[in-house]
């Protein structure tokens, strides 16, 4: 009897995993937690990648993912199928990350001071280093640092477009703006990022000469 029940549960789980997002959402809205868990398993990686780009730390990113799915679960009744579920999820992540960024502004500034001293030897550009992996790691570190210096709006725009490679329409939905507005934000974010990177590069070169 127990084996039959387990088999039935397994069969139900398999049937749930084959459903579309819309069906899973309607089931989750009716109180089916398995449906919501299926949604979580399906989109967990995508949300995590985006979260990681926003916060730059694995533990922070995982916390952000968990918090985002908790919010999604609690507010699943408010979801309307006007936007894709992933877009709705990313909007939640964006809002949460923006809130966290406001709270941790001071912490970031302290980390920046510590990182600058470690990046003194590093440059970006045509220098060829035999330790390319190390160079890439350092470059990543510098870019993440530069990204953290951007405003949440610019950071979100550049991550969605140039890291996650989202279309401008979806970016506009996540950022609650028009497509033209999304294009303009991405353009300005790229310029702002380049300005910060150039500044860091210049400072590191000056400290090297000194």
């Amino acid at each position, binding site marked *: 009897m127990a084996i039959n029940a387990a088999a039935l549960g397994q069969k139900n789980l398999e049937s749930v995993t084959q459903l579309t997002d819309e069906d899973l959402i309607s089931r*989750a*809205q009716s*109180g089916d*937690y398995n449906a919501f*868990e299926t949604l*979580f*398993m399906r989109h*967990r*990686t995508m949300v*995590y*990648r985006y979260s*990681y*780009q926003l916060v730059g730390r*694995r533990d922070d*990113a*995982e916390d952000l*993912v*968990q918090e985002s*799915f*908790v919010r999604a*679960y*609690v*507010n*699943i*009744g*408010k979801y309307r199928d006007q936007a894709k579920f992933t877009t709705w999820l990313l909007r939640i992540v964006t809002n949460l990350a923006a809130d966290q960024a406001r709270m941790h502004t001071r912490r970031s500034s302290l980390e920046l001071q510590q990182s600058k001293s470690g990046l003194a030897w590093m440059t*970006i*550009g045509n220098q060829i280093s035999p330790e390319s992996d190390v160079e*890439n790691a350092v*470059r*990543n570190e*510098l*870019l*993440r640092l530069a990204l953290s210096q951007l405003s949440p709006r610019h950071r979100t725009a*550049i991550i969605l477009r*140039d*890291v996650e490679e989202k279309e401008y329409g979806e970016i506009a939905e996540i950022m609650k703006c028009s497509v033209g507005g999304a*294009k303009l934000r*991405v*353009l*300005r974010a*790229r*310029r702002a*990022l*380049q300005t910060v*990177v*150039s500044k860091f590069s210049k400072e590191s070169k000056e400290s090297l000469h000194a």
Partner: protein
Amino acid sequence: MLNKFQKLAIGKSFDDLNGKQEESAEGMLKSNPEFEAEVQKYRELRAGLNLLKDVPECQLTAEHLRTRLLSESLNPRSKRDWSIYVATATAAVSCLVLGLVWVQQGRSQQSIGYQTQNADVQSTSRPLAVNPPKSILKPLDAPNLAEKPASPSVSIESSRLAVQHRKASPSYSSELNPNLVALNEERAMSVFFPSTRTSRMSSESFRHGFGGPSNPASELATPNNRQITPPMTMEALQQSSKLSTTGQSDQTESTSGNLITFQPVRDRKTGLIEAKEEPKSNDVPLGG
């Protein structure tokens, strides 16, 4: 602000240009070395951003999420039940309407008092016809109303307040004997406004003793208003005092300084309450 040079350089680096812009950028790339350097700078940035795509593996599992939800006893919020909002709004509007109706009824009751008073103004053309509960308040305002070309009065028709302007009767004073009017004025004044000291007492005794409607105008009466009090005969005074239910003698002070005291004893012949005029004395107690 982004200038066209920067827009083209960034767009060219990230392959974000349309056909026309692409041609323009290609032309500048060949002819303008500064533009070429700018494009190269952004291409390096793009390459660096591509490296950011590698992220460590996510170790968050469904169990973590389930544990978190269970630990905080979180449940999905139900969809908004609009019927609750509609019911609440309906109840609120009903309360508001009931409140307005209640306030309006209060006002209409006040206006009934005014209407009664003003309606009696027309009946003053009948000399010496006194309706005790109403005529007590009548003499205060009747002359004022008669002097005005039109006096507002409020009447209620079909639960609505309608303001009507009625002309005061022009024959009010012409049908009366001036001598009799003067005599009546004096006596009426002695009854209703014996002195400033007793006017409040008289007003209270009228209100409670006769049970007639209170007249706000009488409360606001001033000595100037008293000078134009309309006529009233002794019979009317006796008739009005007959309705007194207090059982105590009404004591009033005349303008000449004498006190007119109404006794609780009735005259055998006429059946009316007797009244005595006494010289003013501080020994005579006043009050109801």
